[in-house]
């Protein structure tokens, strides 16, 4: 099983991963992330892991690397819909801060709406 990286032009900041993210496929994701992150001004990167079956530490490193690039810019990454096996790995290594993992896209959208509301109220 290989890794499929699906980019939806309608949602330029959402990366859908499908298959296995391991030592072999992590470099592919790194390359793809490089291309996305280099186009500046990205505040939020969403990984949809609904179809990701396998995640090893090599994959975790991709997410950490993305964080290392985004967070200095004030950006954030979010994980959506991780499967139990993947969730378990994420839980163990704590690579994504609490609040960065959402069970579904809808949950993420609700969270984002809330954030925007807070921003507006703060202004």
């Amino acid at each position, binding site marked *: 099983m290989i890794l499929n990286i699906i980019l939806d032009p309608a949602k330029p900041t959402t990366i859908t991963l499908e298959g296995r993210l391991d030592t072999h496929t992590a470099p592919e994701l790194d390359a793809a992330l490089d291309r996305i992150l280099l186009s500046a001004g990205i505040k939020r990167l969403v990984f949809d892991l609904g179809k990701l079956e396998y995640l090893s*530490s090599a994959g975790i*490193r991709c997410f*950490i690397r993305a964080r*290392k690039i985004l967070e200095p810019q004030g950006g954030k990454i979010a994980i959506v819909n991780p499967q139990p096996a993947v969730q378990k790995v994420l839980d*163990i290594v704590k690579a994504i801060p609490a609040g960065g993992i959402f069970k579904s896209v809808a949950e993420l959208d609700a969270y984002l709406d809330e954030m925007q509301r807070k921003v507006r109220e703060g202004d």
Partner: protein
Amino acid sequence: MLFWVLAVTVPIYASALYMSYQSTAQRLEAGAARDADELAARLAAGIDTVIRPIEGGVRTVAHQLEEVDPPPAQYPQRIRGLLNAWPEVYGSTIATEVRAGDQTARAFAPYYFRRAGAIAYSDLALDSYGYSNLPWYRRAADSLEPAWSAPYFDAGGGETWMVTYSVPFFRRNPDGARALAGVVTADLDLEWVRHAAARVRLPPFTAGWLASPPSAHDFVAPIGESTSGDVEAVRTAAEAMLSKGRTFGLMGSPADRGPYYLAVRNLETLQWRLMLVMSRSQLVAEARVVLLRQLWLGLAGLVLLIAAISFVATGVSNPIRRLAEAVGGAKEGDLDFPLPEARRDETGVLTDALRRLRDSLKLHVQMRAESIAAQARLEHELEIAASIQQAMLPKRESQRLPPGIHVAAALIPARRVGGDLYDYFMLRDGRLLFAIGDVSDKGIPAALFMARVSGLIRVLGSAGESPERILAEVNARLAEGNDACMFVTLGCGTLDPADGRLRYASAGHEAPLLRRSNGEIVVLPTENGVAIGIELAAEYRATEIALTPGETLVLFTDGLSEAVTADGKQLGSERLGQLLVVGDPEKLVQGVLGVFNDRSAGMHVDDDLTLMAIGLAPRSQWIFEPDLARDGVRQAQAWLRDILRAHLDPARVADAELIAEELLTNVARASQGRGVRASLECRPAAHEVVVFFRDDGAPFDLLAQGAPTLDDDIESRNVGGLGIHLVRELADGVRYRREDGENVLEVRLNRKEQP
């Protein structure tokens, strides 16, 4: 039936009729012929009886004339006396002899005869008559003897056809010589003769005639109602017969009458012929009439007979037919057919017999149906018992055996259920417990006993008892109250897949065979104890050896070792060993069964047969060496997945895959292209799976690395320790040791995920 009766009866009847006809005809013919002969004799005698007195009378007159010599004047008186004495006499005279030249004597012949009821007189001495030259006078006068004349018409005398009896009478001359004096006569009127003959009654088919001897004027008087028909032919025949001295015979056929019987008599008095003829064809015709009458009578009898026979026959056959219809109407299994009422004859006896037969058959059928139902029930129960017993045997697919242990077994009961047993299951401590047994007997009792043994082994084994203790405990429970005196030989052992340690105890069971990886067969050394169920308290001792990978333990019951081979001898464990040509338990069992199933091998088994093989897989089966330079991580993951799928749930399999990737990636990274050899070894046990990761790289204890700083700020985070951290977290235990120039990481995964 009727046909056959007639077929037999009619010919018999016909031949009887024919014989009757024949005998009737013959009897009739013979009787009639005899009658005719007798009749002829009687008639002849009768006529003679009439005529002879007349002759006597005439001769008496002649004698008196000679003795007394009365004067001629007294002659009429005497003549009239004669006529008065014999009314049959038509006329009579005394005619005197007139000698030529004797002038003294003159012709004198007063003739008295009957006419219209009175006596008339005629003088025959008239010259116109001239009696002395007439035959009636001349025959007597010339012969000087009484004589009958031929028929003649007495013209000038009696004036009728007649015959005359003439008797000469004599006178003594003075010289004493007797001289003819005259002739006394008596006439018989032929008309009278004819009437007298016509008055005689003849039997049927008989004709008769009275005939004068052949002369110038034949006289023939038909007797009775006879016609004169062809009397001339008869007369000729009669004359011919008389000339041969015969009086009776069957004559040839005159043209129209056919053969006839002829009886002929010569009358003593008149010298006439009496002829009686009897037509044979008429006699036969008479016989035919009799036959016809008999035939009609016979036919009537036959009709009566047929009627009687058919009455009797239908009386017999109808009840039989009704009986046959009643019995024939019985459909298969339906014996409720009605039988006709029993008659008081042989048919009734048959009906009664059939009724008894039907009733007993019904009873039998009912009993048989019940017996079949009972048998079917028993069969069904046996079926269930067999399936329950089969269910008691361990199922390969439901057994979670460590990959190092392979078990194959087969049990073939001699009957539907058997007394053999085998069992194997994993103990909590990761060892395999196995047992094989053979109950002393076959069939249901053995199966029940076997079930107890099986259950006890499960309970005791699961409780962690050692093989020898299990045997002792099973014995203690079964020996008590073993009234059926059954016993079981039992072998029981444990095998630790981790180190191949085998512990085995035997209760009278035949020692297993051990097949070494090089194919050598040895008998497992055992300390055999007493069979179970015999002694109330028995102790057993176990023996222990270590099985090495590639070795196979073969356990069996005596159904196998005592099977009779084609040469008529028991197979025996030595020859059984020769059948164990492969080490793989599955193939080994199939191979041995194949020999038994092959008819040409001529194996004969009459006992339950059980074979169980337990193999410790060769090392190669649980060790994998990934080529790290070429996608080795993926290969190792696939290998692990295949093995562990049978032992762990999918989440744990995924954990193992992740661990393998992290560790092997680390090894690969640490080797830095120096061609390190790595290997994985998988040892599933009862409750956990241990995976050994080995590499021959430089000594390096991954576990000595510090834990990653997970909660640190992302910027300063040590990413390098993530993998080993994952391994520590996912595994239920990780240990490192350096062994034989290799780094060894021992990773334990519990079968059940720890909460």
